[in-house]
């Protein structure tokens, strides 16, 4: 059974329920034939991908829905073989270069040239160019981004890129200069409520505005998360009312407990157990950034007003080291130690 996040995903620009202005803009760009390269950015769960797929449909028509997935093998200059999945229709293909980590440049170089040098199969295609969608563009290495530069210019008669990114801080200036940047804001609470109500109608669920509102707030304007929560509420309860509790993700509950323990039990023994717990989260593929960020926001609720700013400062410091370093657990642990020390010193100064 498909999840409602997928099942109820709008398929065309007309079906999109929020950011009407933006939809209008995309339609006019798609209808003109001189569609530029585009970079969509905005927070996770704001509906970037849905909007891109809808735009693609506006460009080419229903043919873009017939997709297939191929595994392709690329060879690096050191003769390493990389296997890589490509989703494609006859008009477009979609790749996630960060799947191959530091070898993303090889994939970009080979694949884009190949696409650019072949013709549109469908003679009656609405556009003469093909589209390559690049997911998680914020994770592209510098080399891969450099490899895109001239390709984007040289092959522009045959090829358009649509890049998707959560943030554009890591995108190099020459790439930003070659794309039209399109910001996709997260939906507001009201807009999320509307989407939830529409899904409820389709599923035959009761429309509970109180519940919808609570979900919207708890989701922090992340529509994907909101829909997943909504489905979870219905999966876990026979009868859903306005007051049905909304379950937290396990790892968030755990981080809440860890935060309390850090503040209350500032001992070397505690550091050891916390370290093991954090390590466990990492091995369950919770990204270190999510861990430190969630932990920081839980801590902020527990400490004195004077200390809140410092918690954020330490979190930001160690989060940036996570990005620069390689041993994530070191920085998580260092963060924990800093917080314990900070709380300890604060208590002593108050005592005196």
């Amino acid at each position, binding site marked *: 059974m498909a999840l409602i996040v997928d099942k109820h995903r709008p398929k065309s620009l007309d079906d999109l329920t929020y950011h009407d202005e933006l939809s*209008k*803009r995309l*339609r006019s760009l798609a209808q*003109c*034939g*001189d*569609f*530029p*390269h585009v970079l969509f*950015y905005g*927070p996770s769960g704001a509906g970037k991908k849905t909007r891109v797929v809808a735009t693609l449909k506006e460009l080419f028509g229903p043919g873009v829905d*017939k997709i297939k997935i*191929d595994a392709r093998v690329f060879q690096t200059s050191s003769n390493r073989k990389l296997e890589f999945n490509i989703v*494609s229709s*006859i008009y477009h293909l979609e790749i996630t270069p960060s799947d191959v980590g530091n070898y993303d440049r090889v994939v*970009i*170089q080979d694949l884009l*040239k190949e696409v650019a040098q072949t*013709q*549109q*199969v469908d*003679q009656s295609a609405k556009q*003469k*160019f*093909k589209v390559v969608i690049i997911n998680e563009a914020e994770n592209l290495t510098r080399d891969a981004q*450099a*490899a895109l*530069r*001239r*390709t984007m*210019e*040289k092959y522009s*008669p*045959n090829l358009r890129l649509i890049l998707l990114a959560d*943030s*554009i*801080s890591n995108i190099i*200036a*020459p790439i930003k*200069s*070659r794309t*039209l*940047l399109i*910001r996709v*804001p*997260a939906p507001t609470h009201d807009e999320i409520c509307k989407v939830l109500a529409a899904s409820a109608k389709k599923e035959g669920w009761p429309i509970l505005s109180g519940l919808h509102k609570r979900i919207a707030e708890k989701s*922090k304007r992340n529509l994907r998360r909101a829909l997943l929560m909504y489905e979870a509420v219905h999966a876990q309860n026979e009868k859903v009312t306005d007051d049905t509790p909304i379950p937290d993700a396990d790892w968030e509950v755990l981080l809440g407990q860890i935060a309390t323990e850090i503040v209350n039990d500032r001992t070397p023994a505690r550091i050891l157990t916390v370290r093991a717990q954090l390590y466990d989260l990492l091995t369950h593929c919770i990204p270190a950034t999510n861990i*430190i*960020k969630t932990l*920081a926001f839980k801590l*902020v609720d527990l400490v004195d*007003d004077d200390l809140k*700013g410092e918690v*954020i*400062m330490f*979190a*930001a410091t160690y*989060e*940036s080291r996570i*990005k620069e370093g390689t041993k994530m657990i070191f920085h998580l642990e260092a963060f924990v130690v800093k917080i314990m020390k900070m709380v300890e010193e604060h208590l002593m100064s108050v005592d005196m």
Partner: protein
Amino acid sequence: MASFFDLKARKAAAANGASSSAEKKTTENPRLQPWVEKYRPKTLSDVTAQDHTVTVLQRTLQASNLPHMLFYGPPGTGKTSTILALAKELYGPEMMKSRVLELNASDERGISIVREKVKDFARMQLTNPPPGYKSRYPCPPFKIIILDEADSMTQDAQSALRRTMETYSKITRFCLICNYVTRIIDPLASRCSKFRFKSLDQGNAQRRLEDIAKLEDVVLEEGAVDALIRCSDGDLRKAITYLQSAARLVSATAGGDDGDGDKMDVDSKSITVKIVEDIAGVIPDATIQKLVKAMRSRDAFRAVAGVVEDMVADGWSAGQTMTQLNQAIIYDETIPDAQKNRITGVFSEVDKRLVNGAEEHLAILDLSLRISKIMAGR
């Protein structure tokens, strides 16, 4: 269903005459090109704002001699366009292929390629132009190797170039192009005449944009050109892309309102400052002011955290937030200089973190709270 990579289908399609004529149509029909490509300078004299470079190059065109060259400067200032235009003027369409080799960052350019492909091309004997051709194009007796985006070449590959450059300098000239001149190793840089491409100045950029607007039949409201230039930091390519997007936007809204879409209501069809700023991702002043106000409020943590959370959810990029917040604070005369000095340090640190991939929400929240603390005199 034909697959994207079904080569047979592609070959069949290619064999089918229709496709090649369709192909031609794309190149013939400039309406369908993104404007940056459509308005790429075709000749040296088309290149705007790089007067010094253009003058020097035009002189070499007449003298039919050329040093090795190094072009450097920020994105979208005309480096690639200039060398391509120069090559075209030197050799004309027929000789371009045999005389010019263009390699860019999308090509494999490791040390082995430099040793083989570049060297092979460099030492290749010159072919002669067909009779009569020289009266139209100078066709000087050397080839050009363009290494575009050279800053992404490894040091090793660059060193391997040194010898090649010297050995075949009689029949081959190199043109290296990059954004950051410091990424080119000294021994290479010192062998080249350097040409700096400046960010486009107001006047030149304005003229170019207005020309394009006229050719495309779009109307710009008073101040809209300034906004285009301001929002693109001297990067003409960016400015042109914004212009195109804005033009599409207004033509769509105007067309939707009244069916026949005649130029009845000129106002609704012209590009406004607001549209430009919108497209460029400029944060409304009110939002920045709200953030500054939150920093100064009594319960600063809660206020700042709230505003920052909203800004992040609204997708405002961290870079843009930093730029505009910095402006707002530097020009705020109520903030003492001593505080401003400390605040500058915070900006510098957070900027570096962001470029290294730090999470934007934490980074911006940290920045704002630290500024708030400094302004509170703590």
